[in-house]
């Protein structure tokens, strides 16, 4: 019997000390190091981190694909070790690869997936039709999976993950390899799904904009550990702060202004990190004006998750991603 925990009525994922180690070349590699997670029903959580941070490995443990080396987790009400079948019945999983069989027809694959989840024929057909409609797969429903575009394949993957109306959906790098248009389209579908069904969504990504666009809550992972866990807004506010830039007539004015407000001068430009930068900006202009330092131009920029990652690790995710995906990343992350 699945172990039910009465005090977790609202908890979708609860993990303590999840650890995964692999032997590699005579050494033990710690891919995931004692990760604790709490995700409530209805949340949309992004697991953000560079490639190799341990995001997918954590996901594979939570979805029962990989037994943890140590640690415990209750996912969708079932223990991943004691009742993996219970977990599997209740979760949807969209892995990194394309999950439709190449020679299968799109609709057939959805029907097969329904049968895999023990759904009746009629129910499966109705649900497949619904998903084909909502994920805009109508035009390709009778085609072989191998003839689909990258975006269409990804939407099929999501449809396959949703056939049994799971209350918890895992998405592993949902938009990797897609062009900007398909990515935006995919995000719309994810947001729409969330709005309509309230499905709890747990996704991994190494795209900053993806985490920013989709998730209310961001867990930052690096070197197998969760190094930050909060709303995207709070992370930016507490770790990075807003960026205010002020331009002056001369470098000497800029230097004087930088000294007064604790910023950094560079030529005629002064930059300063300030929480609540939109409110701080008029104050700076006023107080510097009173001191005879006239601000000629001012901008205020909200921090990005990359600023957060930089503040946490001293590295930028964009650099990390550039190593892995030299072609794809610069155009999209900017």
């Amino acid at each position, binding site marked *: 019997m699945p172990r039910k925990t009465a005090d977790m009525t609202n908890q979708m994922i609860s993990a303590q000390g999840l650890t995964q180690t692999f032997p590699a070349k005579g050494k033990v590699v710690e891919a995931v190091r004692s990760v604790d997670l709490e995700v409530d029903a209805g949340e949309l959580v992004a697991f953000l981190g560079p490639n190799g941070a341990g995001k997918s490995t954590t996901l594979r443990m939570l979805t029962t694909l990989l037994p943890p080396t140590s640690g415990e987790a209750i996912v*969708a009400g079932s223990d991943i070790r004691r009742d993996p*079948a219970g977990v599997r019945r209740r979760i949807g999983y969209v892995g990194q690869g394309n999950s439709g069989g190449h020679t299968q027809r799109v609709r*057939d694959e959805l029907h097969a997936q329904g049968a895999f989840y023990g759904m009746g024929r009629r129910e499966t057909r109705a649900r497949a039709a619904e998903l084909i409609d909502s994920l805009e797969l109508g035009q390709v429903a009778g085609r072989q999976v191998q003839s689909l575009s990258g975006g269409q394949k990804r939407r099929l993957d999501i449809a396959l993950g949703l056939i049994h109306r799971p209350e918890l959906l895992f998405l592993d790098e949902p938009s990797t390899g897609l062009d900007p248009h398909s990515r935006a389209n995919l995000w719309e579908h994810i947001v729409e799904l969330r709005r309509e069904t309230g499905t709890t969504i747990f996704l991994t990504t190494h795209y900053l904009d993806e985490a920013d666009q989709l998730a209310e809550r961001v867990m930052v992972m690096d070197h197998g550990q969760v190094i930050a866990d909060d709303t995207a807004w709070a992370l930016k506010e507490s770790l990075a702060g807003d960026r205010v830039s002020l331009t002056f007539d001369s470098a000497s004015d800029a230097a004087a202004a930088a000294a007064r407000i604790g910023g950094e001068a560079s030529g005629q430009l002064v930059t300063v990190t300030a929480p609540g930068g939109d409110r701080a900006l008029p104050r700076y202009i006023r107080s510097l004006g009173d001191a005879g330092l006239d601000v000629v131009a001012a901008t205020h920029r909200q921090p990005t998750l990359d600023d957060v990652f930089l503040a946490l690790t001293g590295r930028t995710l964009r650099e990390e991603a550039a190593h892995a995906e030299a072609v794809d990343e610069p155009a999209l992350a900017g």
Partner: protein
Amino acid sequence: MTTIDTTARPTGFLRDTASVFVRESRPLVRDPFSVIFSLVQPLVFLGLFGPLLIGAAGGDAASTLQWFVPGILVMVALFGTASTGANLLFEMQTGSHERTLVAPLSRSALLVGRALKEVVPLVIQGTIVVLVAVPFGFSLDVPGLIAGLAVLAVFGIGFGALSYTLALACRNRDWMFWMVHQTLLFPLMILSGMLLPLEDGPAWMQVAAAINPLSYLVGAERALLAGDFGAPAVVGGIIAAAVTCAIGIVVGVRAMKRAR
């Protein structure tokens, strides 16, 4: 989460096996031509090797075909099922296999359903080969053919399961799969007496044939397709097919249970 179990009912092994079987068979139903396509090789042997054999044997065409066609049937079973693991190999490299591992399906069903699917193309292909040979003088014994195809089907399930096992063992090393496949297949074929009789071969070849389950299968098919149900070779063939099937399923299920 006490009322969580509403959308999905628990599934059992038989039901899961049926679901996997249906999924695997669908491309075949949608695109029956693929079955014909994989018949090219056996038909080439039948059409190009057959006449040479008839000439070399010096006998009449009909009796040579009676000897040769059952061997081609075994070839159909051997080649058709030996490469089926490549489909799984491919699905392991995309995300299809992983998707089935996250679904609440019994691991055994994932293997058995796939292996059972081998029966469908095998029976269709075997029937076509026999029907093609009939106009050239092959005499058809219908109960014998049905029995022969049944024995082949049992063998095919087992050999298909072994091919899936090889795929699971090779994971993303395609080359290893094809290397083992190529290395084993032709010796197995030649050392079964499927193409040429081994009675005139050296003693070591006859020893090799004696431990090759395919030689028993070829012997049984020759007897069954001639309508000779009482021949001792039939028993040997049934045992060879059953043993192959049992071993294939056991090691295949074990490999699938370890798959991740």
